[in-house]
């Protein structure tokens, strides 16, 4: 590759030699330091060889001495290109300017990629990098990769490992997050709490770890009833309250409760369908400037616009701050459709399934469900009740009671 580049820069000629002393001519060339390459002999005895352009004028005495004739078969290399395009100064200048521009841009970061994040959003990381002064256009040498890795680990509690490196003009921030974040509890803020029922329910099971349980399995409770009390009475010898001991109630209490479900589906719905007509416009964005091709068509009454943006990238992750894209506007036809009972059932079932899956994701176990659908004036009404088993506890501060004053001794 380097040899090819040297030959290209110096310029070279492919020669055809013929005569009786071609070998002698080549030997004389070699002895005078004229490098030759790609020597081959044709079936008719002609010799083909390549030499540097600068050596061509040194051949004359050797040609005379050996009586070898030559013909230039091909000229190649930069000197010939310059000569060919000598009148196209603007083109050459533009080419040179482009090369300088690309060389300059290659020293900067034009794309930032965040990998491995799930809990922390990409925007949050980019914003953080911006605060650190790392944004698009920063010099590659200005980024302290080790320092940035350390600060990412320190400033984001979720991040347990970070790696920052450059790939071409792209900055890659690769992070590893904790598998499960510890749930924040407000127990420490309010040390004395009760567990109360957040809904009417029948207790299914109760496992108490702290506090005094006031209910047992199969008890019926109403919303707001205290289930586990964080206040414990300490009695004296007479069985009277001497003082109170406060702690945070802690228990797993499952209760069977009833949830009501209701949904409405309109008898009519607006359906949009593409008509098949679309208009394309193209844009070029560079350093905050955006050039869009003019709008040559009238507006659609109803349309959907999709914009696709691509960042210009040379091979080898060499991203440039140039974005090209297409804006496609597709005409949409709106139709009002009557919804049949079958369609409504299908849609209702879909909504209901989503509702159930949301409940199950929150740890609610479905015991029984009963849902009906009926047609009303303007819509279909879906309603029903679900019997579920769920955690019914809610944490509230414990009522603080004054400790009773000690009674005077009767004998006194």
């Amino acid at each position, binding site marked *: 590759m380097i040899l090819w580049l040297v030959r290209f820069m110096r310029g070279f000629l492919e020669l055809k030699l013929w005569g009786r002393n*071609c*070998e002698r001519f*080549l030997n004389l060339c*070699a*002895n005078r330091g004229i*490098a*030759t390459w790609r*020597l081959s*002999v044709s079936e008719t005895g002609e*010799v083909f060889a390549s030499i540097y352009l600068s050596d061509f004028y040194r051949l004359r005495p050797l040609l005379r001495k050996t009586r070898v004739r030559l013909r230039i078969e091909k000229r190649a290399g930069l000197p010939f290109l310059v000569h060919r395009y000598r009148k196209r100064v603007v083109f050459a200048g533009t080419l040179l300017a482009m090369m300088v521009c690309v060389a300059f841009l290659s020293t900067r970061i034009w794309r930032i990629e965040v990998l491995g994040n799930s809990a922390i959003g990409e925007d949050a990381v980019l914003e953080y990098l911006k605060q650190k002064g790392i944004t698009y256009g920063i010099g590659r040498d200005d980024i302290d990769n080790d320092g940035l890795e350390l600060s990412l680990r320190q400033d984001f509690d979720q991040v347990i490992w970070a790696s920052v490196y450059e790939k071409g003009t792209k900055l890659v921030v690769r992070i590893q997050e904790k598998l499960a974040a510890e749930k924040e509890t407000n127990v420490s803020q309010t040390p004395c709490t009760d567990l109360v029922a957040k809904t009417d329910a029948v207790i299914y099971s109760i496992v108490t770890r702290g506090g005094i349980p006031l209910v047992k399995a199969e008890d019926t409770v109403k919303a707001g009833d205290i289930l586990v009390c964080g206040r414990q009475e300490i009695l004296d010898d007479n069985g009277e309250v001497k003082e109170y001991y406060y702690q945070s109630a802690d228990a797993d209490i499952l209760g069977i409760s009833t949830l009501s479900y209701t949904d409405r589906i309109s008898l009519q719905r607006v359906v949009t369908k593409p008509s098949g007509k679309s208009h394309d416009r193209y844009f070029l964005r560079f350093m905050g400037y955006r050039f869009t091709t003019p709008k040559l068509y009238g507006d659609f009454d109803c349309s959907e616009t999709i914009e696709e943006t691509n960042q210009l990238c040379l091979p080898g992750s060499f991203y440039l701050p140039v974005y090209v894209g297409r804006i496609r506007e597709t005409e949409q036809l709106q139709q009002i459709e009557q919804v049949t009972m079958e369609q409504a059932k299908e849609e209702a079932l879909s909504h209901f399934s989503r509702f159930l899956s949301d409940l199950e994701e929150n740890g609610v176990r479905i015991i029984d469900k009963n849902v009906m659908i009926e047609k009303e004036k303007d819509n279909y009404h879906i309603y029903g009740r679900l019997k579920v088993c769920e955690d019914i506890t809610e944490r509230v501060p414990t009522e603080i009671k004054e400790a009773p004053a000690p009674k005077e001794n009767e004998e006194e």
Partner: protein
Amino acid sequence: MEQLGLPRDLFLGMPVLSLQGNRFLCIENHRGILQAGREKIVVAAKPWGIEVAGRELSIVRFTKDYMEITGYLEHISFLL
């Protein structure tokens, strides 16, 4: 020379041949080309010439004391 451990190619001017399979031959310390053809290349060397026979032979690089021959090499012999 052997007892002194001196390289023969430097002190006696003997050619050094490097062969890669039957496709590439590199000759150092040569004294020029005696004959060049598609099927035979004869190279001058000290003390004997070297004859390379084969098919589609060509000299890809040729300088004062170094040359590379490519092609399908079939036979290499010394012209004693």
